[in-house]
């Protein structure tokens, strides 16, 4: 399908407003360039001792294992997230609001907590076996290695696919689907030829986020005993403080992240882009009638929720109850919860605003340069947190005591790690909007800022909200950069959980993790509710 909105009346392309360009470069510089400069500088410091800790063959093996994991997790996340989003957004699935609210929640389980739960829960003689033993289950598969990591990382990543696909399903111009149906396409071919292409940018963005996240994850991977470039980087940093060797491995990881970002850009653009036609139809289409599949279909969201949300929650609750009386240091950390809440809100707000110029630039004035700026901003999310954290220590210590170990630098750390989530989400929803809309507003005499405010932002709103939620949830669970960059005495729930795991105290881990999820719950619900409320109001 070619462009639905003819661009015959196309305006002469105007120059990029200076403000957009300058801001986008500034953000990309702050976010993307700092880690690269830092890693480059450290890699240049390599000596013979460094090369003792690296071998070409080992690096190649690690790169392959990392890629295999990224592929597997991305596939699994798409396989779970997309059908779930469709069921919730477009069908008459019973209790779809409930499933829609529950589906993104596993995002608030930090991957290392998920791995601890899986490890301790499914271990031989562990919790799950204790529960199942009366039913004659003697042994469970050991949750280690590739499959264990695959499971845990899918748990923490399918919500990206779900959130982005849901917001795309909601911003699709349903008049296109109706047109396709009225022209005689079956509902299946309409899905394949209209809906899916319209979803493609969102799915590509989500796949990008998932695979970059897999590259960067350390917690789950190390607990499950699987080796990736990131675990190798941590080993260099932690065993020998060998920042030079770690930097060289990090640059390999940067190369992989760059390849992923390039591949994402390629499969997103090109022909077959389906735009929203102007304001289009503001209604949601009538839900697809599942017929006799209506109730059996519930099994899917139910089993996903059971495995990825209820299961871990049950283990955490059990730890809280079972261990509380034995441990006298048991306490709920309200102060840490408050810190987590406001710093994550701040990071979400800053990140979302910060990526707008870059998103706008690459959407409205696509050029090799604007694509480069966008990719540069995406890159750091593929790096392990310790590398990003140390790059800001490197920067902060040079900027002086005013900024170093301040909230400002900590927020910069979060924005560096997680702005890509906001960028991908905003981009994904802008993709559905024809740039001609903005041109039209401009041709009617609106200045760039007015056109952005009046036309673009409202259309991109679901993506902006989804992006802010993603950044919020990522920040709430962030650990390695927080440990390095937080002001002295600043505790978040994630640092509390870390302290608990450091001394093996599940009794602290469990309540803090539950509190973390309680914190994130209203935000996820609020966004879910507002988005559907907005759709109920006719445009």
């Amino acid at each position, binding site marked *: 399908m070619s462009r639905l909105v003819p661009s015959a009346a196309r305006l002469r392309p105007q120059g990029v407003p200076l403000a957009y360009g300058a801001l986008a470069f500034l953000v990309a510089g702050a976010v993307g360039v700092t880690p690269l400069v830092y890693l480059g500088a450290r890699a240049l410091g390599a000596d013979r001792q460094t090369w003792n*800790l690296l071998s070409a063959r080992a690096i190649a093996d690690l790169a392959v294992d990392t890629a295999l994991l990224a592929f597997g997790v991305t596939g699994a996340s798409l396989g779970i997230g997309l059908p779930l989003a469709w069921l919730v957004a477009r069908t008459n699935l019973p209790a779809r609001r409930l499933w829609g609210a529950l589906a993104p929640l596993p995002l608030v389980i930090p991957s290392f907590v998920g791995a601890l739960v899986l490890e301790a829960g499914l271990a031989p003689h562990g919790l799950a076996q204790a529960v199942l033993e009366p039913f004659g289950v003697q042994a469970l598969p050991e949750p280690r290695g590739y499959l264990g990591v695959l499971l845990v990382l899918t748990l923490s990543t399918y919500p990206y696919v779900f959130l982005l696909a849901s917001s795309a399903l909601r911003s699709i111009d349903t008049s296109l689907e109706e047109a396709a149906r009225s022209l005689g396409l079956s509902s299946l071919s309409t899905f394949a030829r209209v809906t899916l292409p319209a979803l493609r940018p969102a799915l590509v963005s989500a796949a990008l986020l998932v695979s970059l996240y897999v590259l960067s994850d350390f917690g789950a991977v190390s607990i499950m005993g699987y080796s990736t470039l990131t675990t190798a980087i941590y080993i260099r940093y932690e065993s020998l403080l060998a920042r030079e060797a770690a930097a060289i491995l990090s640059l390999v990881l940067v190369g992989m992240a760059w390849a992923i970002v390039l591949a994402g850009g390629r499969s997103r653009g090109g022909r077959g882009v389906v735009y929203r036609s102007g304001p289009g139809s503001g209604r949601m289409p009538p839900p697809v009638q599942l017929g006799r599949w209506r109730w059996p279909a519930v099994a899917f969201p139910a089993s996903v929720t059971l495995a990825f949300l209820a299961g871990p929650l049950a283990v955490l609750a059990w730890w809280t109850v079972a261990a509380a009386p034995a441990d006298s240091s048991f306490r709920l950390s309200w102060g840490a919860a408050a810190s987590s809440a406001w710093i994550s809100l701040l990071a979400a707000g800053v990140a979302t605003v910060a990526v707008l110029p870059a998103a706008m630039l690459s959407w409205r004035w696509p050029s090799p340069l604007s694509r480069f700026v966008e990719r540069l901003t995406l890159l750091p999310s593929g790096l392990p947190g310790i590398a990003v954290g140390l790059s800001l*220590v490197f920067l902060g*210590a040079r900027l002086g005591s005013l900024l170093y170990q301040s909230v400002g630098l900590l927020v910069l750390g979060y924005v560096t790690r997680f702005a890509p989530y906001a960028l991908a989400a905003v981009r994904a929803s802008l993709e559905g909007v024809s740039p001609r809309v903005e041109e039209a507003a401009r041709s009617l005499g609106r200045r760039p800022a007015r056109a952005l405010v009046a036309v673009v932002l*409202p259309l991109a709103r679901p993506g902006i909200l989804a992006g802010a939620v993603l950044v919020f949830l990522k920040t709430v669970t962030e650990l390695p950069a927080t*440990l390095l960059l937080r002001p002295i005495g600043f505790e978040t729930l994630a640092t509390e959980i870390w302290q608990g795991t*450091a*001394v093996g105290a599940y009794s602290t881990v469990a309540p803090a993790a539950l509190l973390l999820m309680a914190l994130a719950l209203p935000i996820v619900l609020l966004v879910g509710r507002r988005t559907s409320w907005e759709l109920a109001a006719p445009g």
Partner: protein
Amino acid sequence: MPRVLSRLPARLAAAAVIAVVAVGFAIASSASAARQGASLTIYSGRDERLVKPIMDRFSQETGIELKVRYASSVSLANALIEEGSRSPADVFWATEPGTLGLVAARGLLARLPATIVGKVPSRFSTPSRRWVGTSARSRALVYNTQALAPSELPSSVWELTRPRWKGKLGIAPTNGSFQAFLGATIYLHGEDRVRDWLRGLKANEVKLFPNNTSIVQAVGRGDILLGLVNHYYLYNVLAETPGLPIRNAWFRPGDPGNLVLAAGVGIVAATRQPALAQRFVQFLLSRWAQRYIARGPGLAEYPLVKGVNPRSGLPPLKEIAGPKYNLGRLAADLPLAVKLLLEEGFLA
């Protein structure tokens, strides 16, 4: 267009303004806090829950405010290295002698006065006096008491490659204390013997764990019967799950598996207040602090200063009889251990 949509940009703008104000406020408040009274910045790899009472007591006694940054010893060490001469830290208190040694090797720790270092046995510091031990912790063999009687236990780490222990032993190759044990063993017995031992373990289906705690828990569950760990993890796990059938044992006197390690402290070379920093180090070696490290809640380590006894129930250090090894050597021996673990596929 619905009104709510047109209000969104205003909200975004408001959020941006709030963000900028909050950041500005945070910077301003941290700057003003820096200008009050005497204060020391401590980088503590020791867990807050365990050592906060020591920090509080110091501030109470001296009136010196402590700003303590708690994180893992290695991430603090990496931060110290990046900060270099611009470090805001005055004191680095770490859980691993290897970490201290590597930081010292980069020239980031100041020389301590001989009077301070002289308070502890010389093997718990370095000849160049860059750091001093604050407590000793011993490598130990944790075992499942339901499956094994004390008389059945191996009497040396070298016996762990025997078929009797096939699939029954757990180690944590990423753990700093395990790597320190391996480094010391390479120094004492040569790289070839240690390499053979590692290969023997692998052939014997040794189980790899991410850390000491998970080893002790696995021994408690009976997944494995033996684990090479530091002695105090046992108490943490028992506090969490009382009644687990686990106990520590040691190998025969002088065995490398009995290596005694230390947590230690150093003064950051970049400090502008060495005298205050020395006061803090001295305090950690005071009787009160040493007694707390030995017997405070959650702590079960060996005090290093004369006249303070360890927690009852711990075998005396003399009985454990670790191999003769100066922990100051670790900066040189640790890289050999890590290289060996990489070559033999225990690390990637």
